[in-house]
C-alpha cells in the first residue's frame, strides 16, 4: 500500500474531509476542510470521490515523501510547490514516483493549502469522518513529522484533467457577504451600521475554530445573558470584550454570545483563507 511519510508540517497540518455530519445532538460539530471549495477541487483533480480525506496545511511548510507511486494535487492558498526540488504548480496533477519529495511552501496569498492523494488519506474514521476537530479533540491526531499516512486504494476512474482553474485569491482585503441576525437586535442600530461600513482586521488569534477580529466596537442594545444556542460556520459572535469572532470549521456546536450576522456559505472559503492582517469588509446580502 502506498503511503505519505511526513517530513515537515509548518504551523498546523491536519487530515480533513467533508466533515462529521449527524452528531450535533451529541455535541459533536461538523469540522471538515476549512476551505471546502479548495478541498473539493484537490479531490476532483486526482479523481477521488467527494469526501476523500486530504491534508490541510496552514501557511505552507509541508514536506512529504511518497512511499510507492502517488498521484497528488495541491490546491488552496497559492504558493510555491516543488517535487524533488523542481518547481511544480498548484491546481495540477502531480505524479510522484516512489521516494519523491513534495514540498508545499509558504503561500503568497491565503492561509490554507490542501494536498489530496489519489485514493485518499486512509486513516481510521471517527464517527464517520477522518477530520481532526481541533476544538473537540476528535478524529486523527495532528500530523507531525515522522507520521506515515496510508494512502487508500485508487478509485476506478483516472484523472481527466491536468490542471483546473480556481478563482483568484484575494490579497490583503476581502469582502464577505453577510446575512444579519440571528441576534442583531441585541446590538444598537449604530453597531449594525459600523459592522457593515467599518474595516475589521484578522488578528493573529486565528485558527480552525475561528478568527478573532480587531475593529471598531459593536455596542449592545441590551444587557443580560443569552442562553446557549446552536452556532453555524460563518457566525460573527460578539463576546463581552467586543472583539468579533468569525466561526470557522471547528466552531463549537453551541455558543452563549449573540451573533450579529453570518457570512454566507459561498464566501466562507474566503473567510477561512484570510490570514492574520487581512482587512475584512462585510457587505449585507439581506
Amino acid at each position: 500500500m502506498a503511503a505519505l511519510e511526513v517530513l515537515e508540517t509548518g504551523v498546523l497540518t491536519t487530515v480533513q474531509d467533508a466533515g462529521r455530519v449527524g452528531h450535533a445532538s451529541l455535541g459533536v460539530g461538523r469540522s471538515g476542510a476549512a476551505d471546502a471549495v479548495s478541498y473539493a477541487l484537490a479531490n476532483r483533480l486526482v479523481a477521488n470521490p467527494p469526501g476523500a480525506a486530504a491534508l490541510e496545511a496552514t501557511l505552507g511548510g509541508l514536506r512529504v515523501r511518497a512511499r510507492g507511486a502517488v498521484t497528488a494535487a495541491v490546491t488552496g492558498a497559492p504558493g510555491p510547490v516543488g517535487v524533488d526540488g523542481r518547481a511544480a504548480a498548484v491546481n495540477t496533477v502531480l505524479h510522484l514516483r516512489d521516494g519523491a519529495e513534495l514540498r508545499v511552501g509558504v503561500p503568497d496569498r491565503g492561509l490554507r493549502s490542501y494536498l489530496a492523494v489519489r485514493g485518499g488519506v486512509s486513516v481510521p474514521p471517527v464517527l464517520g469522518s477522518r477530520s481532526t476537530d481541533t476544538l473537540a479533540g476528535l478524529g486523527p491526531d495532528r500530523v507531525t513529522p515522522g507520521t506515515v499516512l496510508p494512502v487508500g486504494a485508487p478509485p476506478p476512474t483516472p484523472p481527466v484533467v491536468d490542471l483546473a482553474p480556481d478563482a483568484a485569491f484575494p490579497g490583503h482585503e476581502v469582502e464577505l457577504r453577510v446575512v444579519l441576525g440571528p441576534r442583531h437586535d441585541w446590538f444598537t442600530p449604530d453597531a449594525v451600521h459600523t459592522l457593515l461600513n467599518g474595516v475589521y482586521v484578522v488578528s493573529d488569534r486565528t485558527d480552525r475554530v475561528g478568527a478573532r477580529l480587531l475593529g471598531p466596537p459593536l455596542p449592545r442594545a441590551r444587557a443580560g445573558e443569552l442562553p446557549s444556542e446552536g452556532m453555524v460556520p460563518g457566525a460573527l459572535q460578539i463576546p463581552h470584550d467586543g472583539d468579533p469572532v468569525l466561526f470557522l470549521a471547528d466552531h463549537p456546536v453551541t455558543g452563549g454570545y449573540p451573533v450579529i450576522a453570518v457570512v454566507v456559505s459561498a464566501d466562507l472559503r474566503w473567510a477561512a483563507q484570510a490570514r492574520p492582517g487581512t482587512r475584512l469588509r462585510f457587505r449585507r446580502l439581506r
Partner: protein
Amino acid sequence: MRVLDCGDTGVLVEVADLDEVVALHAALAAQPPPGVEELVPAARTVLLRVSPGHDTAAVAAAVRALRPRPRHLAAAEEVEIPVRYDGADLPDIAAATGLGESGVVAAHSSATWTVAFCGFAPGFGYLVGDDPRLHVPRRAEARTRVPAGSVALAGGFTGVYPRSSPGGWQLLGRTDTVVWDLDRDPPGLLRPGVRVRFVPV
C-alpha cells in the same frame, strides 16, 4: 415561536422554554423539512442546519406550519451515576441554596434529571431536574481545568464533564462513570431524553 435568520444555511427557532424546545425538536426529528441535515436543540432554541443550496425560507415556512404538542421530556432510558459528593464548590452551593451540604447532596441525588440537550463538548449533556432549589449561578470565574468525571451544577442544569476541560460550573463531586466513549455506539451516555439518577457513594 420566533423564526430567525441564521445565514443561508441555518434557521434558528426560538421558543418559550425548554419543554417547547423538546416538543419542537421531537416534531422536527420525526419530520425534518427537506434540506435539513442537522438539528441542534439548546436551552430556548432549535437550530436547523440546512444543506447549501436549499432555500432557508422554505424551511422556515415548514417550521411555522408545525404544531408541536407540548409534552414533558420523554425518557429514552434510565441510567444511574454513582457520585462522590466531595466537590470543591459544595460549600458554596450549600450556602447559596441554604440547604447545607447534606441537603444539597440529598436534593441532587433524589431529583430526577433528564438530558435536555448536548453541547459545549462531545458528550456533555445539559440535565434538567425537578428541584428548583438547586438553581445556582455559574462561578464568577471559570476554572482553566475541570477534571474529567466532575459532576457540576449551574443555571438550573447539572452535567458531567466528559473530559478534562475549562469550565465555569460549580463542582459538586466526581463520578467514575464514563459518559463519552468512542468505542461505544452511540458514544454518548447522556443523550437527549435519557433520564438520570445520581447515587451517593
